[in-house]
């Protein structure tokens, strides 16, 4: 062991600073003791305990600094002394680390912003209702992004909110736009006169994006959460949303997007819609044809796809979408021609979605075209995937389902596990088409298309080497103004060989028609 005692008379530092410096300098490799101390009575004892002979510093006092070092080697001693001097010299230099106050509670935030009027709650579900209730009691509207909130808590929160004249968007509300402010996962869309109330996140995003692409804009987009239209909740938020938009001078036309409401709530809603003073478009994705026909005959504008909802909302678009039939037919023809001659192609569509409603719309679309389409979100037990990790026949997987997101971020944020699944499906000889969605906007991954494009390029090369072909068909829910500009994302995907359709519905249709076309292609 090497020892050294350095004396610096008339050099004062406070004891706490010196304790910190001693312990930091002790981290230098090979150093076993560092005692940087003022020579007070107590520190004399410490120095003696550390093995320094009291005679060495008998001439020093409380205003004198000594640096006692013990290390394995002379080099380590030198390094420790350099470190001690660095630390001594740094005293008084601003760390710049003085952090801004961390607000840790709703109450703390309210103390700083008493005029706050909306809370976004995205805590784990078990705690979300509690935070939301606090917000309501303080007079705030609430958007609850969290899922896994008990249904009875949702009912209690919404009834409380209704009493107080407040809005509870959610639970499980992923997106909303109020006064042009994006809340949650939102695309950047023009402000305009179309008001949306939606029980589905990506459904709202797709309609808002298409309204924007048609040259119109959004006044308000209110999310309700997926269970709002259950009979237990009774559509409280959607009805409040309708009231709000009807009173909003900035809203000229109101569009409702949801899965089919529960029977009693369906009647209440349609009743409310009939009394509406503004034109209204209703899109209950997957509603019975009978219900749709009845409502239509009663004069309501009923849409059966998200695309149709947007088209009915924007009656005379400044920038129309391409003709649907022609666009889909062209895509199918292009793709069909790419399968190698003389080799039997796969037979099935495999869809991997990040958006739940987009998956649902694709499922409804393909179900009407193809036999036996399975999905993890199918209601019918016959078509419900037992294991969401294993496809069977035509299969569409909502990868944003709880099953996948319990221990990792949503696929809109973390692309990795959807990429793995895309690879798995593409390499399956039974697969003819891989169908997917790409959702842009605030909240989403900063380059959602990029990672997929790279993987598709690799997969196409590997498949070609094996003498196979699989079509990759997708739609991009996003605008040019999004943080990830739509044209760049589309260009990258196209370059990699992905066929992009202008809507989710059209992408699903193209996938369905393509496998139908391929049926005729024999070995």
């Amino acid at each position, binding site marked *: 062991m090497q020892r050294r005692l350095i004396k610096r008379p008339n050099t004062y530092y406070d004891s706490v600073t010196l304790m910190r410096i001693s312990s930091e300098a002790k981290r230098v490799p090979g150093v076993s003791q560092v005692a940087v101390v003022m020579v007070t009575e107590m520190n004399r004892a410490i120095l003696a305990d550390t093995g320094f002979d009291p005679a060495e510093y008998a001439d020093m006092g409380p205003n004198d600094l000594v640096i006692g070092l013990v290390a394995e080697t002379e080099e380590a001693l030198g390094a420790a002394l350099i470190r001690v001097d660095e630390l001594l010299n740094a005293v008084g230099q601003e760390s710049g680390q003085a952090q801004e106050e961390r607000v840790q*509670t709703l109450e703390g935030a309210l103390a700083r912003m008493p005029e706050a009027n909306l809370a976004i709650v995205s805590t784990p579900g078990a705690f979300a209702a509690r935070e939301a209730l606090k917000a309501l009691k303080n007079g705030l509207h609430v958007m609850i992004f969290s899922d896994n909130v008990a249904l009875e808590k949702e009912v209690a929160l919404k009834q409380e909110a209704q009493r107080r004249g407040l809005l509870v968007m959610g639970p499980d509300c992923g997106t909303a736009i109020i006064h042009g402010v994006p809340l949650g996962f939102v695309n950047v869309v023009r402000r305009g006169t179309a008001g949306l109330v939606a029980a589905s996140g990506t459904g709202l995003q797709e309609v808002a994006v298409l309204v924007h692409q048609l040259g119109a804009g959004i006044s308000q987009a209110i999310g309700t959460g997926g269970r709002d239209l259950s009979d237990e909740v009774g559509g409280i938020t959607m009805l409040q949303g309708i009231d*709000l938009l009807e009173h909003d001078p900035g809203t000229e036309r109101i569009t409702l997007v949801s899965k089919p409401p529960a029977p009693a709530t369906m009647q209440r809603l349609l009743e409310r819609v009939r009394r509406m003073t503004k034109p209204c478009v209703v899109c209950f994705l997957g509603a019975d044809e009978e219900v749709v026909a009845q409502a239509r005959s009663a004069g309501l504008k009923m849409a059966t796809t998200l695309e149709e909802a947007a088209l009915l909302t924007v009656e005379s678009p400044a920038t129309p979408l391409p003709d649907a039939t022609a666009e889909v037919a062209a895509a199918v023809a292009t793709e069909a021609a790419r399968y190698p001659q003389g080799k039997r192609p796969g037979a099935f569509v495999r869809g991997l979605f990040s958006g739940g409603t987009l998956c649902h719309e694709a499922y409804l679309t393909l179900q009407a075209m193809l036999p036996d389409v399975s999905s993890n979100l199918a209601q019918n037990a016959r078509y419900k995937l037992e294991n969401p990790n294993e496809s069977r026949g035509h299969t569409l997987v909502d990868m944003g389902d709880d099953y996948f997101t319990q221990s990792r971020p949503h696929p809109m944020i973390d692309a990795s596990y959807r990429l793995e699944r895309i690879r798995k499906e593409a390499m399956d000889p039974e697969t003819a088409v891989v169908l997917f969605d790409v959702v842009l906007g605030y909240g989403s991954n900063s380059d959602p298309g990029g990672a997929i494009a790279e993987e598709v390029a690799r997969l196409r090369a590997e498949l070609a080497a094996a003498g196979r072909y699989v079509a990759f068909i997708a739609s991009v829910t996003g605008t040019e103004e999004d943080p990830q500009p739509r044209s760049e994302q589309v260009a990258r995907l196209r370059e990699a060989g992905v066929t992009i359709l202008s809507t989710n519905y059209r992408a699903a249709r193209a996938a369905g028609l393509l496998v139908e076309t391929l049926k005729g292609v024999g070995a």
Partner: protein
Amino acid sequence: MSSTLLYRLLDQELKIINIGVPSFSETLTAVNAPHIHVHWAPPAGGNVEAVELLDRLEVHAETIQRANAEALARILAARPVAVDVQPARDVVPGMDGRILLHAGPPVTWERMCGPVRGAVIGAILFEGWATTHAEAEALAASGGVRLEPNHHHSAVGPMAGLTSPSMPVFVVENQEAGNRAYVNMNEGLGKVLRFGANSAEVLERLAWMRDVLGPALGAAIRAAGGVDLKSITARALQMGDECHNRNTAATSLFVRTLFPYLVKTAAPEQLAEVADFLGRNDHFYLNLSMAACKVAMDAARGIEGSSVVVAMARNGTEFGVQLSGTGDQWFTAPSPVIDALFFPGYGPEDAARDLGDSCITETAGIGGFAMAAAPAIVQFVGGSVGDALNFTKEMRNITLGEERTYGIPALDFAGAPTGIDARLVVDTGILPVINTGVAHKEPGVGQVGAGIVRAPMDCFVEGLRALEERLSQSDR
């Protein structure tokens, strides 16, 4: 009617509070929407059962609120004055026969940590109940000495907190409510009884304190007609103390206040010794600070329904909490390990677990709660001066009010956050922050460092559970 309220949203600019996912706040920043991000932590560290407990307590919210308002009022109204020094056996209630008081919640000899055992042995020798260490240890182990918490006798003591019958104690009176508290005298740093040292040198010092220091200070205090401790603490907080881990200013103020009387009452040769002793011990005021806090917190005891924390204390084995509304029951959890800065030559492997009654100061809103007043010692937590301010601001989340007398200059004279509500601790998941010294785990070595520690969540959850049971029983 409620719809009309709803329509107001159409005329308001959005002002948003984002609780949870930070990226939503980033979006709001990107579009210049006014918002505050809440760095949310799960209540009770994610214990769902504890959240249900909070919900059940909501039924009693009015009762609790009323009780807590009363508790806070009593704490803030307290006027602690040091009125005397007397041998413990003459003034501390229940100090009869062979009894020793220790820090923290109750603990048996078998479960006592090293420093407390060392101090018990030292106190037995000091009292003359045994003549050798071995005899003293055998006496303690055989149950021949009653070992009870200071808190059960209106007393407190730092670290091991040993109070024995012949030790001189300060008598501190709350001149508002009339209750009294007792505390032994600070021995200084190094090898001292409170860190478990019990050598001849330690016992000699204790004897001198009994024979010279105690009587001298008692006479001076009586001659002064008492010393107002609240005013000393208040001034010290403006001079860089937080009156737990830093007492440099308060000690000077106390000595300065008492000196004219000391000069009159003490014999000259004793005066020199007393002055020398006080002049060497920056922590002398700590014990007075603790007793001042103790009388204030005791005034808030026993208010049915109150969830205010009236004691936090550690015996080196367990950390204990008492609530105003749950009587003398302790709610305990294993004593935590301290995040500390160590003296040269020592490290985490040498440290005893958290120990002492001194966190009565945090219970009353100073110490770690007033860290903003004491930037000089923020380095104990490895932080910057900004961090010191944030500790105090953070504690506002779990306290019911402010002690305006303890205005903190760096916070524009905002008062120290006072009156810990166990419900707020559980609800916010924010644990009381405690500044503390670290004892060596072996008896007799002394202090090896200082740092901060957080009170364990379980104590507060268990306290609330007991409170809820009492409240629901009284409803039936």
